[in-house]
């Protein structure tokens, strides 16, 4: 068989021995043949038994199709798709960058004001060392805050999978909610946690998942300023559902706020869509990307009692990513 491409010789031999058992069910197989001018030709080989009128097999019929062109088109399409995804990511990053620019400017502005204040005080006779220490410590904190924003940019830019580690979603929810304790008190919002005890651990990126919850909780709290105080409740529920291989964690964050207009409901996860005058329209979009990168789902439902419910599910057995 001088025409078998030597690189594929072993599989080619196996295939040629196989027909007795496999040919009838096999629709054909791909193989690489060598053209007499030396280049490799991608082929599709179909083999069928030749059977005479008595039903006796007297030979094999084999057809070999040159599919090099089809294959290269397919490869091209795949590369295009990859490029497209990369471009989409760059566009999203551009948007992200301008919103992060604002987030980054805040700590930088604070650092600038603290330092100018320190310089002013150093020149004054009644300056106390303790007040400078206090201001300098605050400068450090703001520098770290700026650093954390930069880190988030890195996390976002990295094209890799989220960092996978075993984490406790219940704990993440409690931590995220705790961040809003002060804010909720100020706004008269009651955060009620209804987290099932001993939730199974999931594989995921703790930082990103917490960011999602922070975003959703923030949205919920901010949606309720015009509501009677007794109804200003943000309810966060987490439990397990499903069985065996389909088992997943469910989280629902429901508010009694202003809700989402019907014709906006389909758009809230789109990038750049926002109902907040100062919003960038990236929050929910990024939340969904994060949940999807964990093979989960994030969606919105109107709260029957008024307001919004954001629901998400995360599979307990993370599928291997493609």
């Amino acid at each position, binding site marked *: 068989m001088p025409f078998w491409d030597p690189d594929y010789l072993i599989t080619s031999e196996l295939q040629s021995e196989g027909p007795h058992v496999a040919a009838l069910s096999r629709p054909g197989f791909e193989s690489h043949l060598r053209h007499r001018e030396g280049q490799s030709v991608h082929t599709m080989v179909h083999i069928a038994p030749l059977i005479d009128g008595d039903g006796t097999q007297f030979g094999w019929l084999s057809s070999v199709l040159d599919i090099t062109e089809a294959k290269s088109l397919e490869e091209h399409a795949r590369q295009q798709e990859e490029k497209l995804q990369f471009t989409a990511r760059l566009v999203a990053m551009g948007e992200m960058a301008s919103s992060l*620019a*604002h987030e980054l*400017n*805040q*700590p*930088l*502005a*604070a*650092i*600038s*004001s*603290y330092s*100018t*204040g*320190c310089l*002013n*005080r150093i020149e*004054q006779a009644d300056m106390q060392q303790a007040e400078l220490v206090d*201001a300098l410590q*605050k400068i450090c*904190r*703001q520098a770290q*805050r700026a650093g954390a924003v930069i880190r988030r940019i890195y996390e976002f830019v990295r094209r890799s999978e989220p960092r996978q580690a075993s984490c406790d979603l219940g704990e993440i929810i409690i931590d995220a909610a705790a961040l809003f304790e002060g804010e909720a008190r*100020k706004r008269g919002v009651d955060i009620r946690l209804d987290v099932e005890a001993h939730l199974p651990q999931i594989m995921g990126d703790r930082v990103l998942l917490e960011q999602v919850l922070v975003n959703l909780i923030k949205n919920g709290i*901010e949606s309720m*300023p015009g509501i009677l105080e007794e109804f200003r409740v943000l309810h966060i529920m987490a439990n397990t559902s499903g069985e065996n291989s389909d088992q997943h964690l469910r989280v629902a964050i429901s508010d009694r706020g202003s809700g989402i207009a019907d014709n906006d409901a389909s758009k809230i996860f789109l990038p750049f869509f926002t109902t*907040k*005058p*100062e919003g960038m329209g990236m929050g929910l979009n990024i939340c969904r990307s994060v949940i999807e990168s964990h093979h989960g789902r994030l969606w919105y439902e109107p709260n029957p009692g008024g307001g919004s419910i954001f629901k998400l599910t995360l599979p307990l057995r993370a599928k291997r990513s493609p």
Partner: protein
Amino acid sequence: MNEPLAHIIDDDEAIRDALNWLLRSRQVSTATWASAESFLAAWHEKFCGCLILDIRMPGMSGLELFDQLQGRRCLMPVIFLTGHGDIPLAVAALKKGAYDFLEKPFDDNDLVDRVIAALAQDSARRNHQIISADIAARLAQLSPREREVMEHILAGKYNKVIADEMRIAMRTVEVHRARIFEKMGVRSAVDLAQLLAELKSR
């Protein structure tokens, strides 16, 4: 809260705290507010000083607060802090009577200078208000007749001329003049003219 304060209104806790420290480093008394809503809820017409207002805030924006305060005849000077790209908003606010705006990032001591200038303006305004109210109160004590005599005095006429024109005794004009000076708290016609000029000047 009658003490003049630089009211810092910003949703970012660190910015609030930093501006607070900055202003106090130059002996400016401050108050901080985490939202436009909280300031508006606490606002009272006795509030004085100036406002340092972030133009963009979640909930009620700086511009909305400015409109609300104008609606309530709050005359405190407002300095807007604006982000990149908000200049048109800031210019619109200036046209509506905002005191000033600074684009972030700004020179911090420049901000303090402007805050101090705004506080001085507010203090001058309040002084004038007090003086005007005081002059108005004194004027209100004059009888119609005394007002009439006062007009003649302000026109620079001698008592005799006034007496002739008003067809009253010169002695009566002298009594009116003495009572006018006493009620207005002045010692001469020149003082009286200056006092009333002050009321008109503003």
